[in-house]
């Protein structure tokens, strides 16, 4: 685990002396010391990076065939599907990988919540992740508008109209966003420009995210800091192999959707060309926005609904200061563990509510779930930090392994958890 580059290649040595790019790659991806107890939930970071690369590569190729004009956009997408060589495959990859990108990132975030990865000294690492989520949401929303189907048009109308809830300046802001008096050609053009730009902004924030990550290294399932080199293993080959295996499993699941149900996660109305005179009977956003859409609709006041929806993500920025418990991993937090799963179920419930009509039972459940979402962060977490009695932490990452052997590690940990 030396920090120095080991090579006999004279050219690499010559370049590295002048531009230490090989040393940097060695330090961040090869010799980089990682905790030796990372489980499969730690695969989802590199998996998200993989999804981002796939999105950018397929997106650049699609942009070569797409026409950002209200009269041609829909037909240019159909042309990609029917006439462009392999166009259907590239578009379906782009479409479905968008969904899988969100699945991966949501799992990555729930992993962070469970194992307390947002706690000191990793607060900024977590906050940069929230920035990436916001950028992803903006990018995904604008990408969904580009095919100029009915859901594209009306989704854009409803979402941009959210800004009209801002007091005094609301109308002017919406007209500015549209570049006109309704969602129209100027809107489509600027959405395309931004949809192309933002992924590269995401790449930039990802680089800073990794920079912050490598300052203290990954958290781990035990949530305790590594005591020294005996608690760590080099990233390559151990985690490169593990991550590569994860990519393989991920691609199997992805291919299932890609080849057998490519439109399962989309909405059929988006295959009807946009029509400003007819609204679809039931407007729903893409599935990954449903929990936030449910929060928006749960609140009867237009402005407060918009505020609550943005607050539901904004609150993640201050999470490291809401959760005061000194123990990171939920393994050693007997009460928080249950609240975590309750919170998880609550998010799923919000997602279900988001795709139902806002009336009757879904409306009531939506309001309760919205309330619980905020209670979890604002009441439960601060109280648990004071009231919960955590279980004793192991002395080191190596201890459970050395005292019981690999296969017995779980058994060895059991009595400790009950203590």
């Amino acid at each position, binding site marked *: 685990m030396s920090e120095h580059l080991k090579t006999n290649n004279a050219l690499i040595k010559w370049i590295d002396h002048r531009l230490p790019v090989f040393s940097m790659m060695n330090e961040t991806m090869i010799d980089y010391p990682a905790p030796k107890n990372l489980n499969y939930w730690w695969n989802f970071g590199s998996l998200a990076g993989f999804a981002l690369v796939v999105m950018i590569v397929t997106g650049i190729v699609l942009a070569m065939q797409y026409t950002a004009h209200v009269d041609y956009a829909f037909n240019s997408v159909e042309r990609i599907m029917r006439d462009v060589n392999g166009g259907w495959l590239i578009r379906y990859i782009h479409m479905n990988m968008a969904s899988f990108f969100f699945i991966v990132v949501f799992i990555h975030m729930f992993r962070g919540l469970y194992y307390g990865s947002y706690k000191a000294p990793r607060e900024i690492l977590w906050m940069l992740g929230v920035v990436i989520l916001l950028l992803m949401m903006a990018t995904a929303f604008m990408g969904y508008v580009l095919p100029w189907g009915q859901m594209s048009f*009306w989704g854009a*109308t*409803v979402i941009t*109209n959210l800004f009209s809830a801002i007091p005094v300046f609301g109308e002017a802001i919406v*007209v*500015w*966003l*549209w*570049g*006109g*008096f*309704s*969602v*129209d050609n*100027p809107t489509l053009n*600027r959405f395309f420009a931004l949809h192309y730009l933002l992924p590269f902004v995401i790449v930039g924030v990802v680089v800073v995210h990794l920079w912050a990550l490598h300052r203290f290294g990954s958290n781990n399932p035990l949530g305790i800091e590594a005591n020294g080199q005996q608690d760590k293993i080099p990233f390559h080959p151990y985690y490169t192999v593990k991550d590569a295996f994860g990519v393989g499993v991920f691609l199997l699941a992805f291919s299932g959707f890609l080849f057998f149900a490519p439109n399962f996660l989309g909405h059929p109305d988006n295959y009807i060309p946009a029509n*400003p*005179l*007819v*609204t679809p*009977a*039931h*407007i729903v956003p893409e599935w990954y926005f449903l929990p936030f859409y449910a929060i928006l609709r749960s609140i*009867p006041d*237009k402005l407060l609904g918009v505020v609550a929806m943005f607050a539901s993500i904004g609150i993640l920025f201050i999470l490291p200061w809401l959760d005061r418990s000194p123990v990171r991993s939920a393994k050693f937090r007997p009460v928080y563990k249950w609240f975590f799963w309750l919170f998880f179920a609550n998010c799923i419930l919000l997602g279900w509510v988001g795709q139902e009509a*806002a*009336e009757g039972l879904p409306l009531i459940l939506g309001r309760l779930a919205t309330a619980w979402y905020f209670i979890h962060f604002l009441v439960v977490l601060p109280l648990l930090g004071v009231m919960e009695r955590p279980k004793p932490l192991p002395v080191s990452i190596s201890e459970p392994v050395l005292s019981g052997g690999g296969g017995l590690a779980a058994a060895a940990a059991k009595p400790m958890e009950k203590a």
Partner: protein
Amino acid sequence: MAADSAHASQQSQDEETRRDFLYLMATAMGVVGTGAFAWPLVNSMNPSKEVLALASTEVDLSPIEVGQSLTVMWRGKPVFIRHRTEAEIAEAADVALDELPDQEADADRVVKPEWLVVGGNCTHLGCVPLGQKTGDEKGEYGGWFCPCHGSHYDTSGRIRKGPAPENLPVPPVEFLDDTTIKIG
């Protein structure tokens, strides 16, 4: 000696303030200058001249019989024109204002009572309400009904029931002659 050192420290303090002032001025100029250059970029995203030029539309009303409706496009959005019947006009005029969520008299919403011209997007989240075609559901108040979240509008396009906060907006309407109007 003491006087000398006091003088020296006085001088260095003076120099620090002068330097602070220069820093402040340079930064302020930089911020103002950047802002001045950012404004044209931001403003370029506002509606362009050709979008503003299409901001009015003329409509020939003569083919619309009493009781019929017409939907026209204005600024990229639908506008409802309804040739109201006597009964519809009476119904709209007879409502007590305090029954209305968004209080507005029918007389203030029309130029000529038989022609009602209102924006065709629900004031809730912008859907297009039903009620323009003969077979459409027109809601409990005989005007329009928004299927998205169930808002009912009356024969003056005023919100009567449902989540929408405001009446359907009345665009600027001008009668060029008896059967031609200019919207916008």
